[in-house]
Each structure stands twice: as structure tokens, then as C-alpha cells.
């Protein structure tokens, strides 16, 4: 049996670790709430944008637009969104594996834009063709970051460097559940026509002009939304991981305490028998 001092030291160390994981869990919970809020608050904008795109689709043939036009695909670009930091359970591993599986599954030439340190590590280690990286996004996602990425990929697309752009990220379902997803970013998939009565809209200046303005924003917004989803998923996953770690530490402390008590009792028993033995010898 391990000696008493050693076990006491061990308990202390586990307790320290538990304190850290508990604090990290709290931080993750607060961040999750924030991330969830910004995700929900961003929804009206995105929904409205999709609605508008649909409306323009009713009056003109939007599929002719250069950003909607489907070409033969020989070069694909994947934007992989993972976290900047670890300690969030299997979040990074899952999204990275899902992304690399998706990429390996296509015949065409594929390049990658990585978002987040963990995606960068994973894909650069495996020698994928990385053409862009965006790291250290922070806990609050900025729209300007999404816009920056959107502008870059749109330029690649229009210059014919790539024929399609997909974004791979973890969609936030709820705190415990997330879903890895590959979403078509370019060419823009025209939204389905909403059911119900068609209302004739006036477009100022013209439907095509509005479309020209709308599409870049639409792409940036879709990206922004994906980044927000990923962030919320990450925080959810981190919270769950830290919660599990705290619980594990609790279990470990319990076991070690039992061991410690046993060791203490054994020591006492030995001592008593020694005293009895000593007294016996004096007779």
C-alpha cells in the first residue's frame, strides 16, 4: 500500500486540477451563453437576406449571375472552421476528421483555407494544400473577419482559381449536440421558393443591381453565421469536457480518500500491535 504522505499529496494535486477545470467550465458556460446569444441575434439578418434573394429570384433568372452560375468542378476549395484552442473535448478532432474525410472523398483537386489554430495544425501536418489561414479569432467573432474571408474566396472564385467553395464547420444544435456539416458557399445555391402568394416587388434601381449588391453580403453573412455556429459548438463542447473532467476528479478524490483512510488505519493497527508487543516483552 502506498504511504500516507504520498496519497495526501496526490489528493491535493487532484483537487488543484479540479479547481482549474471547474473554473474553465464556468468560463466556457459564460462564453457559451454569449456565443449562443450572438447566434440567435444574427438569425433575423440571415433569414431576411435569404428571403430577399428568393424575391429577386421570382422576377429575374438569378442563376445567370456569375456567383450563382454552376460550372464544371475541377478545383474545389474548402474552408475548415475549427477552434483556436484545445481542451474542448473531441470538438477539434471531430471537425477536422470530418473535413479531411470529405476532402479525401472527392476526385477533384482540393485546396483548403483553415480557420482556427487547431485546423491549421491538423492540415499543415498532413500536407494539404493550404491557400489561406485565419487564426486567433477570439471569443467574439467579428463580422469584418467573415467579410475578409468572403472577399478573398469570392476573388478566387471569380478569377477561376477555384470552381466551388464549401465551408466545413460544426453546426450548433444544442449545448450537448453539434453536427458537422459541409455547406455550399459558392456558387451560391438559390433558395427555394417560399410557398404562398407571390407579391410583386419593385426593385430600386433594378433587380440585377440589387442582386449584385446583395450576393457579396449574402456570402459574408453565411460565413459569419457558420463562424458563430462553430464558436457556440466549441464553447458547448468545452463546457461538457470540463464538466466531465471535474466529475472525474471528484471520483478520483473519493477513491484516494478511501485509500488514505485505509493506509491511516493500517498505520494505527501496526502501531498498536507494536505497543502491545513492546508491553508484552517487558513482562
Amino acid at each position, binding site marked *: 500500500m502506498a504511504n500516507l504522505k504520498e496519497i495526501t499529496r496526490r489528493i491535493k494535486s487532484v483537487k488543484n486540477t479540479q479547481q482549474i477545470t471547474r473554473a474553465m467550465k464556468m468560463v466556457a458556460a459564460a462564453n457559451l451563453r454569449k456565443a449562443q446569444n450572438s447566434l440567435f441575434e444574427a438569425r433575423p439578418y440571415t433569414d431576411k437576406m435569404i428571403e430577399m434573394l428568393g424575391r429577386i429570384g421570382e422576377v429575374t433568372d438569378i442563376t445567370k449571375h456569375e456567383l450563382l452560375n454552376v460550372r464544371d468542378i475541377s478545383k474545389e476549395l474548402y474552408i475548415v472552421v475549427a477552434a483556436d484552442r484545445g481542451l474542448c473535448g473531441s470538438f477539434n478532432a471531430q471537425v477536422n476528421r470530418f473535413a479531411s474525410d470529405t476532402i479525401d472523398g472527392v476526385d477533384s483537386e482540393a485546396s483548403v483555407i483553415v480557420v482556427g489554430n487547431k485546423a491549421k495544425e491538423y492540415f499543415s501536418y498532413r500536407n494539404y494544400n493550404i491557400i489561406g489561414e485565419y487564426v486567433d479569432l477570439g471569443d467574439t467573432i467579428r463580422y469584418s473577419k467573415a467579410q475578409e474571408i468572403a472577399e478573398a474566396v469570392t476573388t478566387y472564385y471569380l478569377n477561376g482559381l477555384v470552381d466551388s467553395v464549401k465551408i466545413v464547420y460544426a453546426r450548433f444544435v444544442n449545448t450537448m449536440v453539434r453536427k458537422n456539416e459541409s455547406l455550399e458557399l459558392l456558387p451560391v445555391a438559390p433558395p427555394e421558393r417560399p410557398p404562398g402568394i407571390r*407579391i410583386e416587388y419593385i426593385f430600386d*434601381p433594378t433587380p440585377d*443591381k440589387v442582386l449584385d449588391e446583395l450576393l457579396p453580403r449574402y456570402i459574408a453573412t453565411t460565413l459569419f453565421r457558420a463562424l458563430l455556429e462553430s464558436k457556440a459548438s466549441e464553447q458547448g463542447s468545452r463546457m461538457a469536457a470540463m464538466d466531465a473532467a471535474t466529475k472525474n476528479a471528484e471520483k478520483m478524490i473519493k477513491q484516494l480518500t478511501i485509500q488514505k483512510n485505509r493506509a491511516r488505519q493500517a498505520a494505527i493497527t501496526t502501531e498498536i500491535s507494536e505497543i502491545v508487543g513492546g508491553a508484552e516483552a517487558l513482562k
Partner: protein
Amino acid sequence: MSLIQLDIVSPRRLLYSKDVRMVIARAQSGEIGILPGHLPIVATLEPGVMRVKLEDESEEKIVVSGGFLEVSKEKITVLARTAELPEEIDVDRALQARERAEKRLKELSKDRVDQARAKAALDRAMARLNVIGRK
């Protein structure tokens, strides 16, 4: 007189929601005024000041950094990158932005994209400063 709901949404959140009497905005083709019962319209907005007439005839000015305006039967929706009420405007920041944009416009007269960007930044800064009455 009837009212219509005006919502201004940015990618971040819903910025503004009020029942209003009239909205005057700068569309690409010129200023447009919208009263309740306007025909459905989708318009692109220029960066500038949007004037909103409230129920009690008072007027609010909102700085909008470009975007879209949609009028449907029941409400007006403005999709904007950002929008600010006069009291929310950071004067120093706007002044700095104007200076920066002006400098940039002088420096790089060649690159068309950069020029357009600087011009847009200048427009936004000017709109902000106009609203608070600083030139």
C-alpha cells in the same frame, strides 16, 4: 394617421424597432420617402443618413452604412452593416476615420478597389459627422 413598423437589423443584432410615420432614406437612385401603405419595394441604400418621423411628429436621424431596404405590407426592414443613432456616434472615431480616408484617397489614386473602399469609408464618416452637426 397610420403607422408602420420599422426594423433595422445588422448581422450582429436587431438595432432598432419602432412604429413610425414616415421613413426617408437615400437609395441608389435618390432619396425615397416611405409612408405606411407603400407598394412593396426592395432598394439598395447608400451610406448616409436616414430620417425617421415618429408618431409625435418628432424626427430621428439614423446613420446607416449602406445596405438594403425592404417594404412589405406590414413593415419596413432595413438590412444594414451598422446603424447608429446620433447619441451613439463616437465623434473622435468619425473624425479620425475621415482623416484617414481623405489621406488614403490622395495617396492611392491608382488601385480602383482601394479607392472605392476609401471613398465608402469617407462617405460613412461624413454621414456620421453630418448628423451630429460637425463638419
